[in-house]
């Protein structure tokens, strides 16, 4: 049975009296895999932050699993991979294992000490992402691609129902990127995990995601790739080239 995991209605977010987001309404169900695309500064990351309750909208409503996002408590259902943590201190003395364990906090009761089932979950995700051999390494010693896999491990260690990824493939080389998207595809299909992924990789997203959300401060398009690629209305709105870039590898 498919459950509504995100519901956004008439969302508006302003910063310094300027509309960063307005007239945004859409919903996401379990099993959906949505590519969130749009030009730089179009409000993609802000939209994710509003959805997650990290910033408050000026108008409208966001519901997560039927609960208002400002009162939301079931964080164990959500995995979040922020944009390449810009503030990541390369000298922070934390190991891969310690970082992944932080992803389990939402399902723990105080004092939130780790137990055997937590260790099993960490072990399983280390294998899934092929990072077991770097478990005891410090995060600052790793390459960008390895760090990205560690943060993805933190996001999925809880086996969430909804996975929110903000530009996850930026630091990855083409081969790792391919494996990354394949993994997302299998999580989506095998576990029915809803995925929303912000990406500039418009040439690739059509191969993996089932729906497209095109944002430019307003929601310009939300629907299936078939609708996006077959519509003359879309050609008029985005131009033939833009439509072609997104659609050409979707077959």
């Amino acid at each position, binding site marked *: 049975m498919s459950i509504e995991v995100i519901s956004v209605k008439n969302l508006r977010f302003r910063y310094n009296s300027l509309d960063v987001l307005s007239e945004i309404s859409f919903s996401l169900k379990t099993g959906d895999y949505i590519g969130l695309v749009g030009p730089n500064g179009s409000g993609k990351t802000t939209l994710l932050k509003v959805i997650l309750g*990290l910033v408050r909208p000026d108008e409208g409503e966001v519901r997560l699993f039927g609960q208002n996002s400002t009162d939301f408590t079931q*964080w164990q259902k959500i995995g979040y991979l922020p944009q390449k*943590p810009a503030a990541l201190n390369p000298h922070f003395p934390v190991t891969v294992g310690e970082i992944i364990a*932080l992803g389990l906090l*939402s399902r723990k009761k*105080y004092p939130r*000490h780790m137990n055997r089932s937590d260790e099993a979950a960490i072990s399983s995700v280390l294998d899934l992402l092929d990072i077991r051999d770097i478990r005891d390494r410090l995060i600052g010693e790793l390459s960008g691609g390895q760090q990205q896999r560690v943060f993805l491990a933190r996001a999925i260690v809880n086996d969430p129902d909804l996975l929110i990824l903000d530009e996850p493939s930026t630091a990855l080389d083409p081969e790792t990127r391919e494996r990354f998207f394949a993994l997302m595809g299998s999580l989506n299909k095998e576990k029915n995990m809803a995925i929303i992924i912000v990406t500039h990789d418009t040439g690739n997203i059509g191969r993996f995601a089932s729906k497209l959300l095109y944002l430019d401060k307003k929601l310009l398009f939300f629907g299936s790739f078939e609708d996006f690629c077959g519509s003359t209305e879309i050609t008029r709105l985005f131009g033939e080239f833009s439509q072609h870039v997104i659609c050409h590898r979707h077959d």
Partner: protein
Amino acid sequence: MDITEFLKYGFVQRALIAGSFIALLCSTLGVFLVLRRLSLIGDGLAHATFGSVAVAMLFKMSPLYVSIPIVMICAVGILRLTEKFRVYGDAAIGVVSSLGIAAGVMISSVAGGFNVDLFSYLFGSILSISLTEVYISVGLSAVVLFVLSFFYHDLLSITFDEEASKVSGVKTEWMNTLFVLLTALTVVLSMKVVGIMLISALLILPAVTALQVSKSFRSTIAIAALVSVVSVISGTLISFSLDLPTGASIVIVNFVLFSMGLLYKRAAGSA
């Protein structure tokens, strides 16, 4: 006189017991402060402590009891200035710090000038610590260490990535308030050990020393604690045997260990 002779003195025993607990407390909290780039909050709150000690002396009350609530209010003030009024963190610390010093100087002036007691808080007097102060220091240190241990994962999460920690269900605003309150309590408890002028050294130096050699977050805290306790014990004993100021001796030992940490890192890096 050898070390065993020193240890027979009650005031030395009291100094070492209270000093060790406070060293543990400062080093543990210090790791979080340094990694959150909040090192100087200790300095700012220490200056606020100066003002509060002057208030206590004006009304002839115990500096510890007067300072704890005042410095806690200052700590929350710094937090609110940054969160609600968007004042930069270092500027907010500067505001509270200068206000604390100004208040201290003004009150001391009204009370008839600086006296010996106030200087003992400025530069520390761990060897004059009373039995009651030992009980209070050990008791409150144990409480703060327990709270830090209870919220260890939340604090690590916020320190590493505050945004992601919110999505892990950590109540970040509440946790930040708790964190600055614990810092305030720690600063007040430490004033007798190294003195108001040197408190930030007890918070910062063991943490930065540990950061040179640690291989995980847990080991950072363990090494910082070890460095801090060793510094307080050896600094106290050195000061007593060589008749040097205790607070300054503790800081110098801390600095020597930090230098050794830097050399170790350099040697390990070139190996």
